[in-house]
């Protein structure tokens, strides 16, 4: 029963808090999870991971986009999971920039949103929200019941097929329902020929490869410019 779970979300929304409660639940259900945390420069999450007593690995992407870095390492991560004799690989992404969505067809894609931040901005989140199997709404203790209902209702419009779970990451409420949903998702056999759910942003410009100088003369490759004809248009 092999599964790959991707926990997607912006910085500080509570991805690690969800994992902290989810892993003990999965272990209690006799699964063998292992964890991977992707970050850019530094991560403190390994302290939490250590306390969960499961195999974990940290991937620091350094100068590369962390989401591209993650996708480039998916097959290697799957092999590592096999080597560790685990059945469930949980990957926590770095805080996404809202344009990339490293989820693939074969992953169980879980998008984590902060209830206090998302009431206005859910539409800005793009493929991460619209393409996820599951949406977890954290910090629900911080908003009123009415606001929570409005938030869930608007997320259902953005992604009608996703299952939505309100979670209080401080005390773990809601994680059991989330865990049961994960258990009911189909398993996968292999990561050969898996596909990204959504394209990554197109890139490769001078700045991607280390240019520091500002100005059109130094910009080569795929370069986008603001359309000033549209001033005050929005």
């Amino acid at each position, binding site marked *: 029963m092999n599964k790959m779970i991707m926990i997607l979300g912006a910085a500080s929304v509570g991805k690690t808090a969800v994992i902290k409660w989810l892993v003990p639940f999965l272990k209690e259900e006799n699964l063998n999870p292992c964890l991977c945390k992707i970050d850019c420069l530094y991560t403190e999450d390994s302290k939490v991971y250590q306390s969960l007593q499961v195999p974990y690995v940290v991937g620091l992407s350094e100068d590369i986009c962390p989401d591209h870095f993650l996708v480039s390492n998916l097959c290697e991560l799957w092999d590592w999971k096999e080597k560790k004799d685990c059945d469930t690989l949980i990957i926590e992404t770095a805080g996404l920039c809202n344009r990339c969505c490293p989820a693939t067809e074969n992953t169980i894609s879980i998008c984590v949103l902060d*209830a*206090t931040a998302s*009431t*206005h901005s859910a539409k800005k989140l793009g493929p991460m929200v619209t393409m996820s199997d599951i949406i977890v709404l954290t910090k629900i*203790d*911080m*908003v*009123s*019941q*009415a*606001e929570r*209902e*409005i*938030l*869930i*209702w*608007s997320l259902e419009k953005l992604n009608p097929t996703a299952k*939505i779970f*309100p979670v209080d990451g401080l*005390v*773990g*409420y*809601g*994680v*059991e*329902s989330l865990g*049961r949903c994960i258990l009911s998702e189909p398993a996968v056999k292999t990561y050969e020929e898996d596909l990204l759910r959504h394209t990554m942003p197109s890139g490769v410009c001078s700045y991607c490869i280390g240019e520091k100088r500002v100005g059109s003369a130094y910009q080569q490759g795929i370069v986008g410019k603001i359309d000033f004809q549209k001033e005050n248009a929005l």
Partner: protein
Amino acid sequence: MIKNIRILPGTNKDGIKENFSYIDFNIGELYTIVGNTGSGKSRLIKDLEQLVNKDSVTGRTVLIDGKAPSFDVRGETSKHLIAHLGQNMRFVLDKTVGEFLLLHGKCRGIETPDISAIIQVANEITPEAISETMNLNTLSGGQTRALMIADISCICNSPIVLIDEIENAGIDKTKALHLLLDSNKLVLIVTHDLHTALMSEQRIIMENGGVKTIVNRTREEKTLFEELNRAYQSRLKLQNSMRKGESLA
């Protein structure tokens, strides 16, 4: 229509099982929850709202008419049955008062809620008037709670109402409760206030994260309540005079 909600015991902060076999709450009754700050009053209310099934920090179970709702339908069930006024003193939603009420009405299947009527209800319990075009984020603590109470009363219309402190933010408690109490509803109020606590026939005493005991109101206590009620009314008059800048004695 549901008739009863039952709580099965969980554990207190020390992991010791709560000392009751079950507590029943019946539709049409008012219950109060009292105890020191940090004793677990709000947690009890949240357990009820979330219809927990051993998956909260307390490990309690909530049954509706004897049955635990399944994990899949819990959110929907809670939404239909329960209105919860938490301790929130602020909205985080970035919308106007009118947009909020319209959206929440739609969420609850009311396509065209009577927005001005709801705002009028809110303005009965807060002296500084709210208007439709105000941004939710700019409302004061009292205005926020007044709007939440009006929303619960007019839009939610749920058979179970959970109130985590009604006295907050200087709103008119009597008028607010009048909007929320209904003979067909089950109402639970968390309170530190003696007068509010004695409104109910049964009060639940919390300690160290667990239910300590349940106390039934005696006949003498009911007389005490009536005394307190008179005192409360005269206090309220004085409070209003104070706010107007009048001399109080």
